[in-house]
């Protein structure tokens, strides 16, 4: 009997599979199915509804926490729905199934001179995932989130309705299902507007900064004339150098500035290095592993700071892929964190409060001897989506190693972080979250937004067929 069979008894026959969040700190054993067509996906959801089995959609599993986990039901893996349905190279509009990845998208469009307006730090998330989490990139301050470049999409609700959603048609659903955590329906088809670029290269300007304060000042200075802006933060630096690091500003090249010309659009020019520091990158995580502790990261960060100071102001040209997908440079890098994995904790804080709150968080972590091994600063602007994480301010993403010994202390520490963020009027990002509770989410997002989301949930999924571990933990769905 195939998983697509309408008569399949999911409770008896669907296999169990242990799935993890990308950070590997949270896991769940679920029933699992990977449909090969949109019809099969709809059939599975219908069957689950009949059996009263909660369903969670999962793409590439790139959410760090429990957004695509379901310890009490069925996980429907949408990655086989990965066909590009049409590509219009004149207008730069791609029509794809929900399981197409960012990689699948850019590989098809770059040769025609188009690049996605918004990409995350890795090329592996699916369109369904990008839309459901409303991902952002290093240009959020300028281009907004992924959802702002979605032309329209089809949403199949658990009730069996297929809704075409755009800014004109079902606009309320459009603005809620984008960033809707996959809890309103299956995204079966998406049309995305891509950006025409004149070159396959970006000009990158690295800038070393000696503190978080200086990084903020430099960000504000550079914002008006940057296409991308991202800061690496040394979360172990202290005192006057608290939050030191390096900024990378990148700008699109005009055609007449591009030494490669059309050749730069070829996919073989849009590659990641195969070796890093002389090591074959596939095994590099093994060499990184001994350094993933406080002294080891301190050593690495010091080396990075020295390197940043040496390269300060030395502009260079880099492919879109090389600049955008830093997280893909080292395959399986997440394994370097060891058996307990890690959590990413990303805070979004209004501009006026951001520096003080982020400095406080860095200090709190250092005092607890649980520093983040990676810090990434980005600039954001608000958007029109219901569960938007973006604010007019800054975000800092921090990676914390989890071990059996520190887990409880780390969760307690994040509660202190969260209090500080909430006091500063901040928000969080569900794709990264593994720690927030319902009360914290209520305070971060406000009653009105959550009420709007829940009203939409009642309208599209009144029986609460779509429930994830994240939905249970953070939104109280059952």
């Amino acid at each position, binding site marked *: 009997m195939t998983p697509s069979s309408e008569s399949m008894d999911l409770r*008896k026959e669907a296999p169990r599979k242990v799935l993890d969040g990308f950070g590997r700190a949270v*896991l*769940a054993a679920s029933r699992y199915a990977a449909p090969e067509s949109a019809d099969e996906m709809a059939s599975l959801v219908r069957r689950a509804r009949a059996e009263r089995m909660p369903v969670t959609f999962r793409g590439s599993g790139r959410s760090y926490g429990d957004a695509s986990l379901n310890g009490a039901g069925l996980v429907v893996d949408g990655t086989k729905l990965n066909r590009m349905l049409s590509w219009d190279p004149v207008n730069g509009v791609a029509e794809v199934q929900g399981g197409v990845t960012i990689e699948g998208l850019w590989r098809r469009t770059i040769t025609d001179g188009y690049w996605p307006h918004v990409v995350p730090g890795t090329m592996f998330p699916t369109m369904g995932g990008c839309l459901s989490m409303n991902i952002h990139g290093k240009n959020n301050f300028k281009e907004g989130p992924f959802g702002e470049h979605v032309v329209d999409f089809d949403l199949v609700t658990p009730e069996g309705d297929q809704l075409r959603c755009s800014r004109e048609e079902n606009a309320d659903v459009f603005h809620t299902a984008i960033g809707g955590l996959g809890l309103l329906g299956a995204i079966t088809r998406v049309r995305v507007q891509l950006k025409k670029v004149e070159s396959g290269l970006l000009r990158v300007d690295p800038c070393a900064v000696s503190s978080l304060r200086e990084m903020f000042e430099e960000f504000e200075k550079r914002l008006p004339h940057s296409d991308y802006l991202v800061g690496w933060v040394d979360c172990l630096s202290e005192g006057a150098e608290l939050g030191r690091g390096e900024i990378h500003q990148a700008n699109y090249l005009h055609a007449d500035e591009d030494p490669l010309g059309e050749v730069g659009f070829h996919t073989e020019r849009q590659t990641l290095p195969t070796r890093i520091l002389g090591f074959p990158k596939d095994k590099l995580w093994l060499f990184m592993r001994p350094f993933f502790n406080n002294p080891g990261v301190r050593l690495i960060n010091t080396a990075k700071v020295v390197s940043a100071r040496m390269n300060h102001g030395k502009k260079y040209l880099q492919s879109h892929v090389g600049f955008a997908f830093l997280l893909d440079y080292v395959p399986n890098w997440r394994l370097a964190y060891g058996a307990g994995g890690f959590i990413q904790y990303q805070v979004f804080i209004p501009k006026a409060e951001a520096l003080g709150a982020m400095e406080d968080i860095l200090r709190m972590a250092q005092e607890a001897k649980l520093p983040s091994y990676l810090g990434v600063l980005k600039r954001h602007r608000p958007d029109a989506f219901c569960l938007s994480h973006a604010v007019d301010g800054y975000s800092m993403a921090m990676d914390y190693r989890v071990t059996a010994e520190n887990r409880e202390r780390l969760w307690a520490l994040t509660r202190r972080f969260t209090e500080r963020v909430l006091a500063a009027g901040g928000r969080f990002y569900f794709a990264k979250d593994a720690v927030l509770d319902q009360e914290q989410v209520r305070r971060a997002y406000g009653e009105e937004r959550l009420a709007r989301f829940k009203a939409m949930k009642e309208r599209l999924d009144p029986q609460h067929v779509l429930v994830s571990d994240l939905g249970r933990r953070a939104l109280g769905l059952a």
Partner: protein
Amino acid sequence: MSTPFTKAIVIGASSGIGESIAKRLSAEGVSVALVARRKEELDRVHTGLVHRETARVYAHDVARFDDVPELFDRIVGDLGGLDLLVYAAGVMPKVDEGEYSFAKDRQMVEVNLLGAMAWMNPAAARFEAQRRGTIIGISSIAGERGRRGNPAYCTSKAALTTYLESLRNRLSRYGVNVVTIKPGFVDTQMTRGMKGLFWLISPDQAAETSLSIAHDMTSPAVFVPARWWLVALIVRLIPSFVFRRLNF
């Protein structure tokens, strides 16, 4: 390292080693789900438990594999979690000299092996995800060689031993403990009336040793009592052309 159990499922809890394990777990304060085919026997065991109030009874035939996924979920929900699964269900119908019965063979494979797989699959997935848990499988020294007396029983226990070893190799990296218990002769309904028994121990002795091993998390596959290890070694070393002439 000693691991206290808090919530356990014992399959085959209505008699023999399973019953004794259930009683001992209950006496330790563990919330126990008693699973077996015969409801009246389960009720009898339940009545004799130290902490009856935290134990529950579930009548289930392990050969009804399709019922396992839902029942497993229900029990875990009732217990509020799970950190120990004990599979002690087993049958060994008498197979006469010159008798070749597929019905009996199938029953042994279904109860001794397939039932174990049906129960251990959901438990293994759950334990891997929660990064802790213990699975105890009651196999047998009979799985060490294919004896002429009962081909299907030896086969089912050999397969169970191998299955448990594979599970252990799969799960130990996630902090999950898989214990294979290989008893010799135990004074249960299964052995009653058999001739030539020696080193016979009570089910309670077998249960005590099994749980002690599982608690310590040090010996993944053991003979009970330990001296059967020597017998197993000798039996394994006997050349096939000699073994086929033996009558046990």
